[in-house]
């Protein structure tokens, strides 16, 4: 379940990190890309798992071990029971592969794998044990949630999510440099996967307590509350701290400028 490292090492020099990730990208494309992308469609499960195993050996095994058993001193967790959903979430959001053990896996801009490669990796990890599968659309799709359902989703959101992710999903602080990320625009599928697999420090919210229908309601609420028009610029949804900042800068600032204009003498002849 614990996909990301809880290592306590601090950030290495940024240039080094950049070089490493560049190297990784290059390595992945050189080693794997031609082999799988052309033949992924229509192959049998066994082939998919085999392709995934290859990908895993190249991209993941250095930390998680050749058989995904994890490596404690790297902070890399055992992956035998995390399931396909966790792989899909971590790799698709570019949290994984991590270039370096950090405090927290942070999402990158774009995954370095193709859809087929992600499927193969997920199929391989899923074949190792029991864990949630990649969800079907009917598990997470919020389009059938009624207006009342979305309001109920809001109640669930404020009870279970806003403590870390803030009242509209703008994110928040956790101890020791960990942050709860912004989730205003997270795709529904990834919200579902995050709830079920508990990435990083986030707890699991399993179906026994929050069934799929409730997850859909929460997703519908996040979508609708962020799509609704605001009553002015929303200051990043950060609450009273940002408001106080603007009261001083925009309010007192502009009024002092006016006061200076009022009290200075105009040009003299």
């Amino acid at each position, binding site marked *: 379940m614990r996909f990301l490292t809880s290592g306590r090492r601090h950030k290495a020099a940024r240039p080094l990190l950049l070089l490493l990730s560049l190297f990784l990208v290059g390595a992945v494309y050189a080693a794997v890309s031609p082999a799988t992308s052309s033949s992924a469609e229509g192959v049998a499960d066994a082939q998919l798992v085999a392709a995934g195993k290859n990908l895993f050996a190249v991209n993941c095994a250095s930390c998680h071990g050749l058989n995904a058993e994890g490596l404690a001193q790297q902070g890399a967790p055992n992956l035998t029971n995390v399931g396909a959903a966790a792989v899909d979430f971590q790799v698709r959001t570019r949290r994984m592969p991590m270039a370096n053990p950090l405090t927290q896996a942070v999402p990158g801009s774009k995954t370095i794998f193709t859809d087929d490669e992600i499927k193969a990796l997920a199929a391989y990890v899923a074949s190792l044990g029991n864990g949630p599968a990649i969800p079907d659309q009917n598990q997470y799709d919020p389009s059938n949630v009624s207006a009342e359902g979305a309001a109920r989703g809001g109640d669930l959101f404020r009870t279970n999510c806003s403590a870390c992710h803030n009242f509209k999903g703008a994110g928040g602080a956790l101890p020791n440099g960990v942050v709860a990320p912004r989730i205003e625009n997270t795709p529904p599928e990834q919200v579902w996967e995050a709830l079920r697999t508990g990435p990083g420090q986030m707890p699991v919210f399993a179906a026994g307590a929050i069934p799929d229908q409730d997850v859909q309601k929460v997703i519908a609420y996040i979508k609708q509350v962020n799509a609704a*028009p605001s009553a002015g610029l929303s200051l990043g949804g950060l609450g009273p701290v940002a408001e106080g900042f603007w009261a001083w800068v925009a309010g007192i600032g502009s009024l002092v400028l006016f006061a200076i204009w009022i009290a200075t003498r105009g040009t003299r002849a």
Partner: protein
Amino acid sequence: MSEQKNLPVPDPGLEEHEHRFTDVNEAAADRAYRQIVGMLAAVPVLVLAFLFVYFGVPKDAELVLFGANLQMQTTLLGLTSGLATLMIGVAAIAWARSLMSDEEIVGERHGAASPPEARERVLADLETGIEASGIRRRKLLGTGMAGALGLIAVPALVSLADLGPWPTPALRAETIERTLWAEGVRLVNDVSYLPLKASDLEVGQLVNAVPETLEKIEDGTAFQQGKAKAAIIVVRMDPNSIKIPDSRKDWQINGILSYSKICTHVGCPISLWEQQTHHLLCPCHQSTFDLANSGVVVFGPAARSLPQLPITTDSEGYLVARSGFTVPVGPSYFERDSSKDFKEGDR
């Protein structure tokens, strides 16, 4: 401080008045005049626009401004009325600055104190008045009146004693020292009231839960008061990775533990749980509790461990409370000695 008698540089006196452009140049004055009238003329236009928005723009219309999706009605009502108000102000200031006479004038200051004669006269009047009142001869009048005036505040103050019920030990035991939890009460999911099956909980899972009895409380106040104390979090951790003291061996099932959701600092609800470190953070003042170690404080201003709710399963496998909380939840208070609450190192 020495009063400035012998200044190193003598006071040259007030500077000579210099005329403004608008004082000497009729064209400049006319220009300023036209600008001010122009600003005042913008006001009726903006007021008309305000009326148009008020009656013409529907509540749900949207407006994209600076890349943000705004409520059109609210924004435009504010822009029109705000600009109109601002125009009036700017016009008045511009008038004062450029067209009203700007010859500065000088006024005299007098000390804040009254002239000595006046002070003496008032003192004399006071003396006369005191003498005339007879208070000097009949001394008890003064003391009696002062005492009576002081005492008349007593009824006023005492009438406030019913501001709220008195927190006697008996009342405290009924209120802040008691929650809805009792033996056999099921733990249910907050909001949906789904009962929790021990076998459904996964390692790393967090459930925000309440007692099943909460749902049946009709009265809004009792509901809020009940929930404010009874809210809990249920977490499941790997039993091998946590410390369970001997006295709490049977307060949990297979690493499923339950704690009060109410911070022991000032009472914020806390549920920011890190599933790998097992730390629980309060979003209000960042007190951090270790749920893998009976809820002891590891950081922040909270002084007491988070109260743990003893739980077990019923015959159907659902989680139920083994008893109520063994200590009051929420912030400490004066009358209760909390030194015997669970601390790091207790067994």
